[in-house]
Protein backbone atom coordinates (compact mmCIF):
# COMPACT_ATOMS: atom_id res chain seq x y z
CA UNK A 1 0.00 0.00 0.00
CA UNK A 2 1.04 3.58 -0.55
CA UNK A 3 0.45 5.76 2.47
CA UNK A 4 0.84 9.53 2.35
CA UNK A 5 1.96 11.34 5.49
CA UNK A 6 1.37 15.08 5.29
CA UNK A 7 4.11 17.30 6.67
CA UNK A 8 3.06 20.75 7.85
CA UNK A 9 5.50 23.29 9.23
CA UNK A 10 5.52 22.23 12.87
CA UNK A 11 4.45 18.61 12.41
CA UNK A 12 6.54 16.46 14.75
CA UNK A 13 4.97 13.00 14.65
CA UNK A 14 5.29 12.64 10.88
CA UNK A 15 8.38 10.46 11.05
CA UNK A 16 6.84 8.26 13.74
CA UNK A 17 3.91 7.58 11.41
CA UNK A 18 6.31 6.94 8.54
CA UNK A 19 8.29 4.56 10.73
CA UNK A 20 5.24 2.52 11.73
CA UNK A 21 3.88 2.16 8.22
CA UNK A 22 7.25 1.65 6.53
CA UNK A 23 9.49 -0.13 9.03
CA UNK A 24 6.98 -1.94 11.23
CA UNK A 25 4.36 -2.78 8.63
CA UNK A 26 6.45 -2.82 5.45
CA UNK A 27 4.40 -0.37 3.42
CA UNK A 28 5.48 2.33 1.01
CA UNK A 29 5.25 5.76 2.59
CA UNK A 30 5.33 9.07 0.81
CA UNK A 31 6.01 12.20 2.83
CA UNK A 32 3.85 14.99 1.43
CA UNK A 33 4.95 18.57 1.96
CA UNK A 34 1.97 20.79 2.75
CA UNK A 35 2.54 22.82 -0.43
CA UNK A 36 1.66 19.86 -2.66
CA UNK A 37 -1.67 20.15 -4.41
CA UNK A 38 -1.86 16.81 -6.18
CA UNK A 39 -2.16 13.51 -4.36
CA UNK A 40 -1.87 10.78 -6.94
CA UNK A 41 -1.83 7.06 -6.32
CA UNK A 42 -2.24 7.14 -2.56
CA UNK A 43 -4.26 4.51 -0.71
CA UNK A 44 -4.58 6.44 2.54
CA UNK A 45 -3.50 9.73 4.08
CA UNK A 46 -2.28 10.47 7.59
CA UNK A 47 -2.36 13.94 9.14
CA UNK A 48 0.21 13.54 11.92
CA UNK A 49 0.53 15.17 15.31
CA UNK A 50 2.57 18.22 16.11
CA UNK A 51 2.13 21.95 16.35
CA UNK A 52 1.37 23.01 12.81
CA UNK A 53 1.96 26.74 12.39
CA UNK A 54 2.80 26.97 16.07
CA UNK A 55 -0.86 26.46 16.97
CA UNK A 56 -1.31 30.16 16.13
CA UNK A 57 -4.86 31.48 16.38
CA UNK A 58 -6.29 28.01 17.16
CA UNK A 59 -4.89 24.51 16.82
CA UNK A 60 -5.21 23.48 13.19
CA UNK A 61 -6.76 26.79 12.14
CA UNK A 62 -3.96 27.82 9.78
CA UNK A 63 -2.96 24.34 8.61
CA UNK A 64 -6.46 23.93 7.31
CA UNK A 65 -5.63 26.50 4.61
CA UNK A 66 -2.40 24.78 3.53
CA UNK A 67 -2.42 24.08 -0.22
CA UNK A 68 -2.47 20.32 0.39
CA UNK A 69 -5.77 20.45 2.28
CA UNK A 70 -7.78 20.99 -0.90
CA UNK A 71 -6.44 17.70 -2.21
CA UNK A 72 -7.00 15.98 1.14
CA UNK A 73 -10.64 17.10 1.12
CA UNK A 74 -11.03 15.88 -2.44
CA UNK A 75 -9.46 12.55 -1.48
CA UNK A 76 -11.81 12.19 1.50
CA UNK A 77 -14.83 13.14 -0.60
CA UNK A 78 -14.05 10.29 -2.97
CA UNK A 79 -14.03 7.89 -0.03
CA UNK A 80 -10.26 7.82 0.57
CA UNK A 81 -9.17 6.89 4.10
CA UNK A 82 -7.84 9.77 6.17
CA UNK A 83 -6.45 9.35 9.68
CA UNK A 84 -5.82 12.45 11.80
CA UNK A 85 -3.84 12.03 14.99
CA UNK A 86 -3.78 14.72 17.69
CA UNK A 87 -2.96 17.92 15.76
CA UNK A 88 -4.14 16.01 12.67
CA UNK A 89 -7.51 15.54 14.39
CA UNK A 90 -7.61 19.24 15.23
CA UNK A 91 -6.93 20.08 11.58
CA UNK A 92 -9.72 17.75 10.42
CA UNK A 93 -12.13 19.58 12.74
CA UNK A 94 -11.06 23.02 11.53
CA UNK A 95 -11.31 21.82 7.93
CA UNK A 96 -14.85 20.61 8.52
CA UNK A 97 -13.99 17.02 7.59
CA UNK A 98 -15.16 16.03 11.06
CA UNK A 99 -17.81 17.76 13.18
CA UNK A 100 -17.08 19.76 16.33
CA UNK A 101 -14.20 21.79 17.75
CA UNK A 102 -11.43 21.54 20.32
CA UNK A 103 -11.27 23.60 23.48
CA UNK A 104 -8.37 24.02 25.89
CA UNK A 105 -8.03 21.10 28.33
CA UNK A 106 -10.25 21.63 31.34
CA UNK A 107 -7.20 21.60 33.64
CA UNK A 108 -5.40 24.09 31.35
CA UNK A 109 -2.39 21.77 31.47
CA UNK A 110 -0.55 20.19 28.60
CA UNK A 111 -1.08 16.50 29.39
CA UNK A 112 1.48 13.92 28.29
CA UNK A 113 0.80 10.46 29.69
CA UNK A 114 -0.61 7.02 29.01
CA UNK A 115 -4.39 6.85 29.30
CA UNK A 116 -6.97 4.11 28.92
CA UNK A 117 -9.18 4.30 25.90
CA UNK A 118 -12.10 2.06 25.02
CA UNK A 119 -12.89 0.91 21.50
CA UNK A 120 -16.59 1.73 21.28
CA UNK A 121 -16.95 0.81 17.64
CA UNK A 122 -14.78 -2.01 16.30
CA UNK A 123 -16.64 -2.12 13.01
CA UNK A 124 -14.77 0.75 11.34
CA UNK A 125 -11.96 0.61 8.81
CA UNK A 126 -9.63 1.97 11.49
CA UNK A 127 -10.56 -0.34 14.37
CA UNK A 128 -11.66 -3.65 12.84
CA UNK A 129 -8.63 -5.49 14.23
CA UNK A 130 -9.73 -4.70 17.80
CA UNK A 131 -12.47 -6.35 19.80
CA UNK A 132 -15.50 -4.25 20.57
CA UNK A 133 -15.08 -2.83 24.07
CA UNK A 134 -11.34 -3.52 24.14
CA UNK A 135 -9.39 -1.20 26.45
CA UNK A 136 -6.15 0.22 25.06
CA UNK A 137 -3.24 1.80 26.86
CA UNK A 138 -2.21 4.67 24.66
CA UNK A 139 -0.43 7.99 25.22
CA UNK A 140 -1.93 11.43 24.82
CA UNK A 141 0.12 14.62 24.47
CA UNK A 142 -1.93 17.76 24.03
CA UNK A 143 -3.20 20.99 25.57
CA UNK A 144 -6.31 21.27 23.39
CA UNK A 145 -8.12 17.95 23.41
CA UNK A 146 -11.32 18.99 25.09
CA UNK A 147 -13.75 17.98 22.36
CA UNK A 148 -16.95 19.94 21.95
CA UNK A 149 -19.93 19.74 19.67
CA UNK A 150 -23.54 20.87 19.99
CA UNK A 151 -26.11 18.50 21.53
CA UNK A 152 -27.81 17.80 18.19
CA UNK A 153 -24.58 16.70 16.55
CA UNK A 154 -23.59 14.69 19.63
CA UNK A 155 -26.88 12.80 19.54
CA UNK A 156 -26.46 12.14 15.82
CA UNK A 157 -22.93 10.83 16.34
CA UNK A 158 -24.05 8.61 19.21
CA UNK A 159 -26.88 7.23 17.10
CA UNK A 160 -24.51 6.47 14.20
CA UNK A 161 -21.81 4.93 16.41
CA UNK A 162 -19.41 7.64 15.21
CA UNK A 163 -17.84 7.93 18.64
CA UNK A 164 -15.16 5.33 18.13
CA UNK A 165 -12.83 5.85 21.11
CA UNK A 166 -13.63 7.07 24.61
CA UNK A 167 -11.47 7.72 27.66
CA UNK A 168 -12.12 5.11 30.34
CA UNK A 169 -10.71 3.50 33.47
CA UNK A 170 -8.31 0.54 33.33
CA UNK A 171 -11.37 -1.69 33.63
CA UNK A 172 -13.10 0.01 30.72
CA UNK A 173 -15.58 2.11 32.68
CA UNK A 174 -16.31 5.45 31.05
CA UNK A 175 -16.35 7.83 34.02
CA UNK A 176 -15.73 11.57 34.53
CA UNK A 177 -12.59 10.69 36.55
CA UNK A 178 -11.16 8.82 33.56
CA UNK A 179 -11.61 11.87 31.36
CA UNK A 180 -8.20 13.58 31.17
CA UNK A 181 -9.19 16.78 29.40
CA UNK A 182 -12.89 17.47 29.95
CA UNK A 183 -13.85 16.14 26.53
CA UNK A 184 -17.58 15.92 25.88
CA UNK A 185 -18.90 12.38 26.47
CA UNK A 186 -15.26 11.27 27.15
CA UNK A 187 -14.64 11.45 23.41
CA UNK A 188 -11.10 10.49 22.37
CA UNK A 189 -11.79 9.70 18.71
CA UNK A 190 -14.60 10.09 16.18
CA UNK A 191 -15.30 9.02 12.63
CA UNK A 192 -17.30 10.77 9.93
CA UNK A 193 -20.71 9.47 8.88
CA UNK A 194 -19.24 7.93 5.71
CA UNK A 195 -16.71 5.98 7.80
CA UNK A 196 -13.56 7.00 5.92
CA UNK A 197 -12.20 9.85 8.08
CA UNK A 198 -11.09 9.20 11.66
CA UNK A 199 -9.68 11.71 14.12
CA UNK A 200 -8.19 10.71 17.46
CA UNK A 201 -6.29 12.59 20.16
CA UNK A 202 -4.25 9.60 21.49
CA UNK A 203 -1.07 8.66 19.62
CA UNK A 204 -1.21 5.09 18.26
CA UNK A 205 2.08 5.63 16.41
CA UNK A 206 3.83 5.98 19.76
CA UNK A 207 2.77 2.52 20.90
CA UNK A 208 2.93 0.33 17.83
CA UNK A 209 5.91 -1.89 18.57
CA UNK A 210 6.49 -4.49 21.28
CA UNK A 211 10.07 -3.25 21.63
CA UNK A 212 8.68 0.03 22.93
CA UNK A 213 6.83 -1.84 25.65
CA UNK A 214 3.39 -1.27 24.19
CA UNK A 215 1.89 -2.09 20.83
CA UNK A 216 -1.76 -1.37 21.57
CA UNK A 217 -1.81 1.27 18.84
CA UNK A 218 -0.54 -0.98 16.08
CA UNK A 219 -3.96 -2.39 15.29
CA UNK A 220 -5.19 1.02 14.13
CA UNK A 221 -2.68 0.82 11.29
CA UNK A 222 -3.28 -2.88 10.70
CA UNK A 223 -7.03 -2.25 10.53
CA UNK A 224 -6.42 0.38 7.89
CA UNK A 225 -4.29 -1.97 5.82
CA UNK A 226 -6.84 -4.72 6.19
CA UNK A 227 -9.60 -2.37 5.05
CA UNK A 228 -7.49 -1.22 2.13
CA UNK A 229 -6.92 -4.81 1.10
CA UNK A 230 -10.65 -5.21 0.92
CA UNK A 231 -10.63 -7.80 3.68
CA UNK A 232 -12.62 -5.64 5.99
CA UNK A 233 -15.35 -7.14 8.08
CA UNK A 234 -18.86 -6.46 7.01
CA UNK A 235 -18.96 -2.81 8.01
CA UNK A 236 -22.25 -2.56 9.65
CA UNK A 237 -22.73 0.54 11.68
CA UNK A 238 -24.36 -0.58 14.87
CA UNK A 239 -26.54 1.95 16.69
CA UNK A 240 -25.24 2.96 20.12
Amino acid at each position, binding site marked *: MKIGVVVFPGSNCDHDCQHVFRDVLGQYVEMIWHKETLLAGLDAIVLPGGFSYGDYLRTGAIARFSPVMGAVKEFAKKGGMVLGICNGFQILLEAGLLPGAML*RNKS*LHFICKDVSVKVENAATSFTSAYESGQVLKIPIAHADGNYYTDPVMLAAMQANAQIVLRYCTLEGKVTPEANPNGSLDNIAGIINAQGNVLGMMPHPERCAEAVLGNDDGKLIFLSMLEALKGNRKQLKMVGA
Partner: protein
Amino acid sequence: MKAKIHVTLKQGILDPQGKAIEHALDSLGFKNAGNVRVGKYMEVDVNETDKAKADAAVKAMCEKLLANTIVEEYRYELG
Protein backbone atom coordinates in the same frame (compact mmCIF):
# COMPACT_ATOMS: atom_id res chain seq x y z
CA MET B 1 -9.82 51.34 7.83
CA LYS B 2 -8.80 49.53 10.95
CA ALA B 3 -10.84 46.68 12.35
CA LYS B 4 -10.55 45.91 16.05
CA ILE B 5 -11.76 42.38 16.52
CA HIS B 6 -12.60 40.54 19.72
CA VAL B 7 -13.07 36.76 19.77
CA THR B 8 -14.31 34.97 22.89
CA LEU B 9 -15.80 31.61 23.72
CA LYS B 10 -19.57 31.58 23.45
CA GLN B 11 -21.57 32.01 26.61
CA GLY B 12 -22.42 28.55 27.94
CA ILE B 13 -19.13 27.06 26.81
CA LEU B 14 -16.76 26.43 29.67
CA ASP B 15 -13.82 28.81 29.58
CA PRO B 16 -11.17 27.14 31.79
CA GLN B 17 -8.80 30.11 31.52
CA GLY B 18 -11.57 32.50 32.51
CA LYS B 19 -12.43 30.27 35.47
CA ALA B 20 -8.79 30.15 36.61
CA ILE B 21 -8.55 33.95 36.45
CA GLU B 22 -11.86 34.27 38.26
CA HIS B 23 -10.52 32.12 41.10
CA ALA B 24 -7.31 34.16 41.22
CA LEU B 25 -9.29 37.40 41.41
CA ASP B 26 -11.35 35.90 44.20
CA SER B 27 -8.19 34.91 46.11
CA LEU B 28 -6.93 38.46 45.71
CA GLY B 29 -10.03 39.71 47.45
CA PHE B 30 -12.00 40.94 44.44
CA LYS B 31 -15.21 39.40 45.68
CA ASN B 32 -17.19 41.50 43.23
CA ALA B 33 -15.59 39.92 40.13
CA GLY B 34 -17.38 37.16 38.25
CA ASN B 35 -18.00 35.52 34.88
CA VAL B 36 -14.49 36.15 33.52
CA ARG B 37 -14.15 35.34 29.83
CA VAL B 38 -10.78 35.22 28.12
CA GLY B 39 -10.51 36.00 24.44
CA LYS B 40 -8.34 37.22 21.64
CA TYR B 41 -7.94 40.73 20.36
CA MET B 42 -6.82 41.36 16.81
CA GLU B 43 -6.27 44.48 14.72
CA VAL B 44 -6.53 44.29 10.96
CA ASP B 45 -5.96 47.08 8.47
CA VAL B 46 -8.59 46.81 5.77
CA ASN B 47 -7.76 48.54 2.52
CA GLU B 48 -11.26 49.85 1.81
CA THR B 49 -12.74 53.32 1.99
CA ASP B 50 -16.34 52.19 1.80
CA LYS B 51 -17.52 51.18 5.26
CA ALA B 52 -20.05 48.63 4.03
CA LYS B 53 -17.39 46.86 1.97
CA ALA B 54 -14.96 46.86 4.87
CA ASP B 55 -17.66 45.54 7.16
CA ALA B 56 -18.50 42.71 4.78
CA ALA B 57 -14.82 41.84 4.46
CA VAL B 58 -14.19 41.75 8.21
CA LYS B 59 -17.30 39.68 8.81
CA ALA B 60 -16.10 37.15 6.22
CA MET B 61 -12.64 37.08 7.83
CA CYS B 62 -14.19 36.31 11.19
CA GLU B 63 -16.50 33.63 9.83
CA LYS B 64 -13.84 31.91 7.75
CA LEU B 65 -10.76 32.12 9.92
CA LEU B 66 -10.54 34.44 12.90
CA ALA B 67 -13.26 32.75 14.94
CA ASN B 68 -14.38 29.14 15.08
CA THR B 69 -18.09 29.79 15.26
CA ILE B 70 -18.79 26.34 16.68
CA VAL B 71 -17.35 27.47 20.00
CA GLU B 72 -16.50 31.15 19.62
CA GLU B 73 -18.30 34.43 19.01
CA TYR B 74 -16.83 37.64 17.64
CA ARG B 75 -17.49 41.34 17.55
CA TYR B 76 -15.59 44.18 15.98
CA GLU B 77 -15.40 47.91 15.56
CA LEU B 78 -14.43 49.58 12.31
CA GLY B 79 -12.83 52.96 12.25
